[in-house]
């Protein structure tokens, strides 16, 4: 679908200089003189590198029509994350560098959406929230419970999260995987 670059949104897929890219950020920008621009940060889904590009806001951009497929995250190795389509048992690999930091919150066996284009996996659709168990934490420090003090804890995937000091080992918490922020106890 062709759209005006001024309508580009975070998360959409475009072709830029021959490579499929995902829009990481798209911000309206108007220079003092001259027409408006759309400043975009595009992540190349092969090299995982970000490139900054300012589109003229009335420039036509082809947004790729991708599908999202429900898959199970099965495991990872040093480079890739592996997913399985539960209906076809087909496996797809995605480079960790492409999926990004968010993958440190993925638990094996979890269901997730993978974006596909022409039967090729592009990247994952980040879940709004993940639930993970705390496996390591210091004991709650006494006293300072009102000022919103935080402490680092380790969750079952090995990632570290800052949580309020009253949260204990063994509890399950919800996390916004995109920001890495604790959002509550479950």
């Amino acid at each position: 679908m062709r759209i005006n670059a001024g309508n580009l949104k975070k998360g959409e897929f475009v072709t830029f200089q021959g490579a499929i890219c995902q829009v990481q950020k798209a911000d309206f920008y108007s220079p003092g003189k001259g027409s408006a621009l759309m400043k975009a940060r595009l992540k190349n889904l092969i090299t995982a590198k970000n490139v900054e590009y300012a589109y003229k806001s009335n420039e036509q951009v082809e947004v790729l029509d991708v599908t999202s497929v429900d898959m199970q995250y099965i495991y990872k190795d040093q480079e890739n994350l592996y997913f399985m389509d539960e209906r076809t048992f087909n496996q797809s690999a995605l480079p960790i560098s492409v999926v990004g930091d968010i993958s440190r919150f993925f638990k094996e066996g979890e269901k997730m959406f993978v974006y596909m284009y022409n039967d090729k996996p592009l990247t994952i659709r980040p879940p709004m929230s993940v639930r993970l168990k705390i496996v390591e934490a210091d004991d709650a420090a006494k006293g300072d419970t009102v000022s919103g003090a935080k402490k680092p804890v380790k969750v079952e995937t090995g990632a570290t999260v800052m949580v309020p000091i009253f949260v204990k080992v063994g509890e399950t918490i919800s996390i916004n995987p995109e920001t890495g922020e604790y959002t509550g106890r479950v």
Partner: protein
Amino acid sequence: MKIQTTIKNLNNYKIYLQVERTVHEFMNKNNYLKVDLPVLSPALIPESYLEIFETKFNYLDKKEKLYLTPSPEIFLKRLLVTGVGNCYYLGRAYRNSEPNSDWHSPEFTMLEFYKLGIDYLEMADEVLKLLQYIKIENKKLKISFKKWEKMSVAQAFLKFTKINEEELFDEKLFFNKAKEKGYNIEKTTYEDLFSQILATEIEPKLGISGYPTLLYNYPKQMASLAKLNEDGRTAQRCEFYINGLEIGGFCTELNDYNEQEKRFISESEKRKKNKMIDHTIDKSFIKALKYGLPFCTGAGIGFERLVMIFANVTSIDKLKLINIID
């Protein structure tokens, strides 16, 4: 759009207030007169790149269109003509068709000030003095205002885009070079292509090496209301950048009213062609300029963008307790 209340921005908002106080203090110490101005005006200066907000005054049978001012220039220049002397405005400005983004809001705060008897490069010293005057305790602040990193537009293009001076100032060569680089050059103008390349390849690299970057001498097509240099191809205009973001700009003001009038006409024709809001044109502004604008330099600074630096945040909405969001 909806209203969002964000009390967790309180500390940033306090920095906003602190910067605001310091700016007033600086202006007062340096003998700039603070002027409060209307934001509703019955007529405007035609600008082909700014869309405006239109509203209506109603009283019984009397109905009159009014416009929110996109900049205080229309009033400040009038005052300069009448002999008000050095002056400044720190207040709201409104621009339509500019959606919320990290660096934009249709309603924003502008610091605009004029100093008589100095040119744009002398104004650069004045702006640096202002930046030095704003002292906010912030250990994360990675920028020093001891000096400018100065770069002419031609130098910046050569350094970051490999477009040389000859190619920059010759429209045909510039279009060829842009095409070679993969930019879409169809249905576009030199001005738009210039802005696009500047924003893509140059701006992200400005003001990131510890000092603010001052870009000066823009091609005459980008002159806006700036006086031209003797070389005939550049204008006495500067913009300054911190962390890749344009914070403000200034230029030696064009005081040739014939030129101004020509620009008025061409800008209002462009507005018509682009089907922009057909507003009443402030003809008395030209009359005032005919009377005589003194030799001066005017500076405009996006106030929220400036505070973003001192508060160490990357978007305007983090400075406010109430935001109107999409």
